[in-house]
């Protein structure tokens, strides 16, 4: 049995809106094992992104616990959670969110900026990450000199540069054409195959073909969990079989 990486216990999140409380998450409990690739599906406003931000240590829940690698995330203070994100998490955002005045390699190095690695080592780590996403030849280009797909690859390189156990992705293919989106999803699949746990919020049903588990949310509730349909993180992952299984 795979080791549990993420454990969510009765998560509730309520926002104030126009004087009334709006529930973004209601009693969400979930376990994700190390090496899983999980798609979070659901309509807009269902609480997917809120769930992702809470798991990412950015957004404290109103109630409940988030335990990642046996660490109770919201028992840590704000600054310790920042340290946690640096060491345990990689983020891939919908609109790439690269720093416009930094080159591809500098953007990739960003999570290493506040670490104690020597400069040369930071650069080597960033180059290795760029190599994994196939962008080592464009390492000195600024974001505006790269295509959307290339920018997404830089964002993925940045997410994996410090070798975190978990990558959180929010609509990573939302701004890409179909062909580029497939390439990016292939990349996620190969990263997952190497042992990385991926949790991805997506609207696109095509994307779940590249995942080995899909959960569905509606009105802040977890309404469907396709479960661990097969061995996780293995190279035996088959796209058509996976898609069928999830459906």
């Amino acid at each position, binding site marked *: 049995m795979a080791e549990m990486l993420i454990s969510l216990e009765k998560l509730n999140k309520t*926002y104030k809106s126009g004087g009334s409380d709006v529930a*973004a998450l209601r009693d969400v409990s979930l376990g994700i094992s190390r090496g899983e690739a999980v798609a979070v599906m659901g309509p807009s406003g269902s609480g997917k*992104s*809120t769930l*992702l*931000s809470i798991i*990412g240590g*950015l*957004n404290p829940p109103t109630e409940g616990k988030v335990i990642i690698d046996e660490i109770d995330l919201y028992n840590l203070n*704000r*600054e310790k959670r*920042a*340290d*946690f*994100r*640096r*060491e345990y*998490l990689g*983020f891939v*955002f919908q609109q790439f*969110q690269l*720093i*416009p*005045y*930094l080159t591809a390699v*500098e953007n990739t*190095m*960003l*999570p*290493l*900026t*506040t670490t104690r690695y020597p*400069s040369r080592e*930071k*650069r080597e780590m960033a180059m290795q990450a760029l190599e994994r996403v196939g962008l080592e030849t464009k390492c000195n280009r600024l974001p505006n000199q790269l295509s959307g797909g290339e920018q997404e690859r830089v964002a993925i390189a*940045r997410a994996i540069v410090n070798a975190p156990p978990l990558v959180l992705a*929010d609509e990573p293919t939302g701004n890409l054409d179909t062909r580029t989106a497939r390439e990016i999803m292939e990349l996620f699949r190969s990263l997952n195959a190497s042992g990385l746990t991926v949790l991805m919020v997506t609207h696109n049903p095509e994307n779940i073909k590249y995942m080995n588990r899909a959960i569905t949310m509606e009105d802040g509730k977890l309404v469907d969990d396709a479960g661990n349909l097969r061995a996780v993180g293995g190279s035996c992952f088959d796209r058509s079989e996976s898609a069928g299984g999830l459906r």
Partner: protein
Amino acid sequence: MNLYSIAFKNIIRCRSRILFIVTALLIGTAIAVALYMIVDSMRLAIGDQIDEFGSNIVIVPRAEGMEIGYGGTELARTAIDLKQLSETDLEKISAIPDYRSINIVSPKIVASVAIKDRDVIMVGVEPQREFAMKPWFSLAEQEGLEAGANPGDLALLELPEKGLIAGADAARALNLQAGDALAINGSTFQVTGILNRLGSVEDGLLLGNLSAVQTLLNRPGEISMIEISAYCNECPVEELAAQLSGVLPNGRVTALRQAALLREETIDKFSLFSMLITGVILVIAGLMVLTTMMGSVHERTREIGIFRAIGFRGSHVMQVIMVEAGLAGLLGGAAGYIGGNLVARYFGSYLAGENIDFIWQTGLILPALGLAVAIALAAAVYPAYRAASLDPVEALRFI
């Protein structure tokens, strides 16, 4: 790649904003440097002018006994162990360490003489030194000049050996006019000029050449008092008085505090005024930096959100903002130092209303840099705190 390089690259990217901050700091620092230089030079110039205006040290013979005075200054005491001053004492004055601070040394002999059955105080002086020290002296009448004609600069007056300048009251009491001959103790003097009324003890005096009065009194080489005008910018008047006491054991040296007090008061007012102006301008510069940095933080909300999401602590974000402000402060300080020196050099004399030579003040470079950096950092604290406190979820519009 470190926090400094992020700050540096952002400065290069946001050149126009940084240029605005640097310009604000440049103006503030340049005005501070220029005002400092101008006021400092004015302090020296005004100090010298005040010091030149009358004496600030008086030396009289050392004596024990009853006081004899002149113009509020004790000249001597009656005949108990009276020590005399002589012309040889004048040479000793030049031996003091701070002699270069001395502007004018005016020796004089003072005695009462009987003229037309009246006792009148007669003072022997070295005229050009005495009149240079007391520029408020002016002549109402002068021998050879027509009434109403300008007698010119009294300090340039060549007083004949047996010439006299009469105070206004003395001239009236003795019924003297310019050109009159006057017999004193069997010797004949000629009235060269009559002083305008001063409202002081000089109105009742007759002023003659030191040597002629010494001869008249049969006291060759003797001196009753020495008045000294000294520049006190570099050496306090009390220090000069102590040095003079050391070389003149026969004399009692008195430092007159009025000039020093006037000088200090005038300079203090100038300093306070310039500090107020500088303070207001620096506060305005600081506010300009603050609003620009706030704008920058607002514009970079999403970027700050990314930093926070990928593991930057609040202190790291603050550090990036503060380093940017510090670098802008260094640039503004350096430019302000150069600008301030140039303003002082080319406009200082006009602004000060004095003909002053301004030299390039290298000693101000560090204070100028420190001032600009301190203002930039102080103004950046709040924007940096706001940046560090940004909610990354809000910043990234994650929800």
